[in-house]
């Protein structure tokens, strides 16, 4: 967009700006190369070799044949499915309701309260939920009892884990998304809303026919980001595994498996790199799809 304008300027100005452009972006460019491009290239190299020899897809075949791989894929897939669907539904519903609240301080306080748990992203949040999920200390042991959970082992039994991870991730992450959706709702022009009201549409119809369609890009953005992040599950099962003495297996998620294959009994960096590459392909595909089709980001 700025190029024509630049072209009209004197040649020296143009050169100076080009130089500044390269200079100013060089530090970041180096970091992008060293911590973005190079690691991917190196992981790809490792995944296709063994002891420096090119072995084609052998590492991938070996990983696919590892009995822990498909269960891990399944665990992650189930978690991601539950997580993304519940996140979309609940975040949109909550944002719509909060947006409809007339009392300004109430609306902003609510958003703030929803957002605060975001400070606990990472191991601290998992730690807090350890307390809440263990019936012997949990302040909500009555609630756990309603589900028939009277011991920590019962609570963290494998079939419950996707829901548990969803609850933890929702607790720490939903507030931020609700604020983003709220902002997007604010961007919907007043005339459109007014027109809907005059046509006699109630809040539900307005939400369904006007607001939600206009949020589509944002919902897609949230879905892509949470899909990508969900597939990387690591810290939650890692800590639960430590705390449950192995009831939550140490190879529950794909990243845990990649970690174990690299540093556990196999000591196999090539196999670990193969898993990383598979995960990266998924993340890259989602990112590329969204960057080029999502229409949300300015890349002029």
């Amino acid at each position: 967009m700025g190029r024509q304008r630049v072209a009209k300027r004197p040649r020296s100005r143009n050169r100076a700006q080009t130089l500044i452009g390269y200079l100013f972006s060089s530090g970041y460019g180096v970091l992008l190369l060293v911590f973005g491009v190079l690691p991917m290239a190196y992981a790809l190299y490792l995944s296709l070799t063994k002891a420096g020899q090119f072995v084609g897809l052998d590492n991938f075949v070996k990983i696919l044949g590892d009995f822990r791989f498909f269960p891990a894929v399944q665990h992650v897939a189930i978690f991601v499915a539950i997580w993304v669907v519940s996140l979309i539904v609940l975040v949109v519903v909550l944002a719509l309701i909060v947006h409809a609240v007339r009392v300004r301080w109430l609306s902003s306080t609510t958003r703030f309260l929803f957002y605060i748990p975001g400070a606990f992203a990472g191991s601290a949040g998992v730690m807090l939920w350890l307390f809440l999920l263990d019936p012997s200390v949990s302040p909500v042991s009555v609630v756990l009892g309603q589900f028939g959970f009277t011991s920590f082992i019962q609570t963290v039994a494998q079939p419950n884990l996707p829901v548990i991870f969803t609850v933890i991730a929702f607790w720490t992450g939903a507030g931020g998304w609700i604020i983003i959706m709220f902002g997007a709702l604010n961007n919907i022009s007043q005339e459109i809303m007014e027109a809907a009201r005059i046509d006699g549409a109630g809040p539900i119809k307005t939400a369904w026919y006007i607001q939600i369609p206009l949020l589509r890009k944002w919902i897609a953005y949230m879905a892509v980001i949470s899909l990508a992040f969900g597939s990387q599950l690591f810290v939650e099962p890692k800590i639960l595994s430590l705390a449950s003495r192995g009831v939550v297996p140490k190879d529950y998620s794909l990243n845990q498996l990649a970690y174990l294959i690299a540093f556990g009994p196999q000591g196999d960096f090539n196999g670990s790199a193969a898993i990383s590459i598979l995960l990266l392909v998924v993340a890259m595909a989602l990112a590329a799809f969204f960057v080029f089709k999502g229409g949300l980001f300015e890349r002029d």
Partner: protein
Amino acid sequence: MSATESSKAARLGADPTGFAPGRWVGRVLAGAVIVFFTLFFVFPLVWLLLAPTKSTTQLNGLDGEHPLSFGSFDQLAENWNALVGFQDGIIWTWLGNSVLYSGAALVLTLIVTIPAGYALAMTSFRLRRPLLVATLMVMLIPNTALVLPIFLELSVVRLIGSPLAVILPFSFFPFGVYLAYIYFSTSVSRDLLDAARIDGAGEFKVFWRIAMPLATPVIALVGFFNFVTNWNNYFLPFVMEPGSRKMPVQVGLAELISNVPLFNPTTVSSITISLPQLALATLIAVAPVLVIFLFSQRFLVSGLLAGATKE
């Protein structure tokens, strides 16, 4: 913000059919949903804030203690002393490491990111577009996905265990570059820069004297997101800094589990961490981030929106 809020206030409130029974059912339902979720988000926090003031038996509720009761300041002091006494105050070492890693990364990130955003927005050069597209792509890839590849790369150059192995990857912050890019391209006018140029200012001076003073909000924003993301990062420092005197507090916190009798079967009561102490450690681990969250609420919320919309 305020304009939209007030016009929004006109929206539902002025509804003439506000007293229709169907509307009321809807409102009560919506109210119930809000109350439920507010409890869901807030209750665990309040409980955690109170937990360090209790003894283990009080926390277990064995003596009929209400979950949201306050223990005592004496008990809080006792838990505090036990925690900071654990392994000669290793929690301070962990906090110090967190400050070092996140702090150094913060400085480096700002030095690298703000000019890069400026370059992408205000100048033109051949690699500009590829750089922008690459930034968007990498920004959407979760940072966890790159942890093991970066580990393998850094182990080739034998940097594992060095503070740089955490600080450098922490400083690579494409989301910040995108934020700065959006900010400069929408909030700083090219004409203003051109006017300075006509007055004879060089490119450096234009950036430093004109663009930078205008960029304070985005500097704060990038700094905030970078600091919070890095402070809470677990996986990267977990592999990069395996030594217990080098780990940041988020990793150290998880290590504490090994010393909690409830979670570790081989533990007898010699040197252990009790649950209220673990709760206290959890709070200390997030304290800096929590304080930032609490005291920059308005700024943060608007920042989150700015980060998400191109306006």
